[in-house]
């Protein structure tokens, strides 16, 4: 299938500063795609270039196969939801949503129908005559979304639109956004620095760092199979085990880690015995048992710190080899407290080798 958006070798620099570095990215139609990364990673610049508010220093952007880099924002069939919503303060909610339709030359009866239809999509039918200043944050967010959807764009761009909302409303809006995307079947390109937002809504997450794509894939894939230390650290938490490859067989590598031999998934890398590698291990993949299990390998450790976090309990344990591991366990699974000895380990496939 032809990608709806294609960035081909796109560079953007501001003087000596490179914001986007040789970006090559194809986005399939109808997907919820999230550009995820820390501030300054180039995700917003990428979005602004697609919207037409910045132009690439070199390279070309294609929308449905046609180059668009030279087009001004008003000539592109993409619409953007701004971080601060940018609702026109002098226009009512209805007129805000109608703005793009009026410029398309649509007749007023059709505009009225479309505005009513869009407002009912977010249950704001009776707010059409309100001014933006009279709306709550969540309502403004919905109006901004509907205003951007009104002209029926091929691609909807969302620039951290949830960051101004409180935590509870944000979660609610995440679900609402996802369901609107499904209902309309449009391509959503969402920019955020919040990994939880990305994991909740996306079909595809593009992790960006220093103007480059660090890794791209489904949320579960990125979470379970991070390829770099950056991704493993940015999405969720990870333990990093610096080790040396001993042997490889059947996709599982045996590595020497501080005097212990442990197993890990090769994760698409080609480890060479004797070479140094880094293992990433999710805290919730680490098991802690009171007695040494017979059926699987484990290591002896002492609990350093036990922190109750509600849904789970977080343990910091120190192993006999001197290193520290972070583990997340079920609060009722283990009654041991700080200073107690436990046995820790993980399934071979839960620890993954990182590409260097």
């Amino acid at each position, binding site marked *: 299938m032809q990608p709806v958006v294609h960035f081909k070798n796109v560079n953007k620099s501001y003087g000596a500063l490179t914001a986007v570095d040789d970006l090559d990215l194809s986005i399939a139609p109808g997907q919820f795609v999230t550009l995820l990364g820390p501030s300054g990673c180039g995700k917003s610049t990428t979005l602004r270039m697609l919207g037409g508010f910045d132009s690439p220093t070199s390279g070309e952007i294609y929308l449905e196969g046609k180059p668009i880099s030279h087009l*001004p924002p008003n000539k592109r069939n993409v619409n953007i939801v701004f971080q601060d919503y940018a609702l026109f*303060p002098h226009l009512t909610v209805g007129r805000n949503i109608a703005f793009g339709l009026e*410029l398309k030359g649509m007749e007023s009866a059709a505009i009225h129908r479309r505005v009513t239809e869009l407002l009912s999509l977010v249950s704001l039918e009776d707010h059409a005559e309100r001014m933006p200043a009279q709306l709550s944050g969540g309502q403004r967010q919905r109006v901004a979304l509907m*205003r*951007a959807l009104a002209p029926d764009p091929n691609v909807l761009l969302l620039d951290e639109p949830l960051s101004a909302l409180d935590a509870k409303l944000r979660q609610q809006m995440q679900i609402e956004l996802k369901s609107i995307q499904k209902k309309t079947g449009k391509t959503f390109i969402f920019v955020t620095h919040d990994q939880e937002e990305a994991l909740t809504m996306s079909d595809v997450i593009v992790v960006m760092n220093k103007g480059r794509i660090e890794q791209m894939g489904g949320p579960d894939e990125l979470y379970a199979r991070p390829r770099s230390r950056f991704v493993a650290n940015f999405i969720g938490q990870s333990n990093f085990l610096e080790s040396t490859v001993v042997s490889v067989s059947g996709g599982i590598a045996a590595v020497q880690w501080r005097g212990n031999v442990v197993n890990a998934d090769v994760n698409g890398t080609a480890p060479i015995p004797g070479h140094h590698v880094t293992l990433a291990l999710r805290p919730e993949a680490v098991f802690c048992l009171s007695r040494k299990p017979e059926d699987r390998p484990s290591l002896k450790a002492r609990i350093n710190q036990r922190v109750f976090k509600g849904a789970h309990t977080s343990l910091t344990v120190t192993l006999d080899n001197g290193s520290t591991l972070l583990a997340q366990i079920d609060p009722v699974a283990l009654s041991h407290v700080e200073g107690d000895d436990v046995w820790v380990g993980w399934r071979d496939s839960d620890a993954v080798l990182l590409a260097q």
Partner: protein
Amino acid sequence: MRNYFNDLPKSALGASYWIFAVYLVLPLALMTAMSFKDANFIAFPIGNWTLSWYSKVVQDKQFLEASLYSIGIALATTVSATIIGVWIALLVSAENIWGKAVIFALACLPAVVPGLINAISMRIFIRAVDIPTGTFAIILAHTVHAVPFVVIMVLTRLRSMPANLVDAARDLGADPFIAFLRVTIPYLMPALFGGMIFCVLTSIDDFVRTFFLGGYQPTLPMLIFAKVQGGMSPEINAMATIVLVVTTAIGLYAEHFTRRSRS
């Protein structure tokens, strides 16, 4: 907010304010009162009250002509100063303009140059470039004087304008001109309105510039000045009272409007 003047006795503050207020209002009240005096000299007591001075003023062809002339000049001044002022404010607020500070400083200069100096230099200037004294020269001088106030008001408003508003309009299909007309101008409206009221009031009020640059036709201040030369009379008081009431009404309405659109 913490009241930093809690330590001062409230009564002292209040009393001194009222002294000031009386000083402010009393001359105006006296002037107004005298316009109702049934005698052709100004002195207490008023004695008999009359509206005859007002009926005389509103039938005074000179007064009506001068009023219309002043209003015409004020309107022309307002239109030209608003256009120039908005233009300069947009220039100064644009990101990549060379010499921004110089443009701004030059635009604001007329606000600090004394009116008399301004008037004399304009007089020399129009003679040098062969512009006759009269309506056009007056409008020129009034415009130069009014522009800084428009620039400052519009610029203040522009700086509070989210940059994304214009981007959003462009994104929804507006070209730069449509975006300016449909988003920037409406956003600037309170500032434009305030600036325009200010232009009208300063223009109608101006005496010095008009005195140096005017022709044979008198504006309202010139007419009143000429009449005062012939001695004060309740008729002048009636004229002044009319001007006072009208300008105060305009000022109050402007204040009300800007306050409403801000909330």
